[in-house]
């Protein structure tokens, strides 16, 4: 009976997943806002599927967690200016990115994805499938729907206090001192404090 089966069971399931709307989850911890927005926008618009067409709405849902830990390059937190303008009086506002992030922890991720989706008629429909959470807690129905995890756009940098003593001891030494090297020489001089001028008439106080 194997000669009659044109498509295997695995391919059949993949074909079903192709035409249905999957739910992906991605961790935004230490991810660049613009790169993350480009990747999420691809999945919201369905551009990762071979059946993609500009008029075919085949996008998937994307859940973004840890939005409060999103990252930006160098000084972009204060040099990225978001311009709000509705052409009404008193509606113009130029707000730096860090103030928006201070006010609402999910808005920077939303603005990045919204920008990456492009200016087209389907943008509002695609952005409806974006689900943003400031940390790892989410609604239960969202957690149940998730069926896939996206790879992060850049690596998460390990902090210094996250290394164990064994890893630190096994790490090779780059600096090699001489045999008679005095380690005390590199220690800092303790701060002697500010000089206080004695009150006239009282010498030792």
């Amino acid at each position, binding site marked *: 009976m194997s000669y009659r089966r044109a498509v295997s069971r695995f391919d059949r399931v993949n074909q079903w997943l192709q035409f249905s709307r999957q739910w992906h989850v991605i961790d935004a911890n230490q991810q660049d806002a613009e790169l993350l927005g480009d990747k999420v926008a691809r999945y919201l618009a369905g551009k990762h599927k071979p059946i993609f067409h500009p008029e075919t709405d085949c996008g998937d849902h994307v859940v973004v967690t840890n939005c409060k830990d999103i990252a930006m390059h160098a000084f972009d937190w204060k040099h990225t200016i978001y311009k709000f303008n509705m052409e009404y009086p008193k509606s113009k506002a130029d707000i730096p990115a860090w103030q928006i*992030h201070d006010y609402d922890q999910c808005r920077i991720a939303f603005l990045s994805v919204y920008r990456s989706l492009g200016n087209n008629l389907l943008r*509002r429909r695609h952005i409806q499938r974006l689900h943003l959470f400031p940390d790892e807690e989410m609604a239960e129905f969202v957690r149940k729907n998730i069926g896939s995890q996206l790879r992060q756009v850049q690596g998460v940098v390990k902090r210094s206090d996250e290394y164990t003593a064994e890893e630190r001891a096994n790490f090779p030494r780059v600096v090699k001192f001489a045999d008679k090297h005095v380690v005390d020489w*590199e220690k800092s001089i303790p701060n002697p404090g500010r000089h206080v001028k004695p009150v006239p008439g009282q010498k030792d106080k």
Partner: protein
Amino acid sequence: MQMLRLYASNCAGKIKAAVETASRLQSTASGAAGHKFQTKEDKKEGTTYISMEKVTDSRGARKDDELCSLCTCNVPIKLTYKDVLILEQFMRDDGTVLPRQLTGLCKKQQLRMERCVMQAFWSGLFGDKYGTEADRAGYKRFNRYWKDDMSMYQLETKQRHGTWFYIKRYPTKNQQLFKNPLN
């Protein structure tokens, strides 16, 4: 040889620190090539003897023909701000960077290492290891990354179109965003 005699152990630490500071200033001012002093303590019958012994360190000022630690490989090593275990070997216990005389690096690598240490501090990769007095106000407490060690000098302002769709979709009426809130 300088010999000091102390009868009480309470002020031994203070005088020891003072003697170390004085000897360091003396050796720095004299311009001696690598002469240092090491503290030696002896305790006899309740008396603490502290003496400063002159130690001739074999590493003096860095020679020009000496290879630096980061240039010895055939494969070019590019130090980044993520290599915190390498950067900490060039740092003192209070977070400052050792001079070139001690690290043995060439000038280019020394300057790059100093830039990477700055970037690691700005990204918060050292945590609270070197104290909590780092400036984390405003935008400095959010996550940042650096493409290379010269990113701190390449400054540009980016203009982004801010959309009101988020504000309409997720109403934030209870919080004041502008002076005259429109939502």
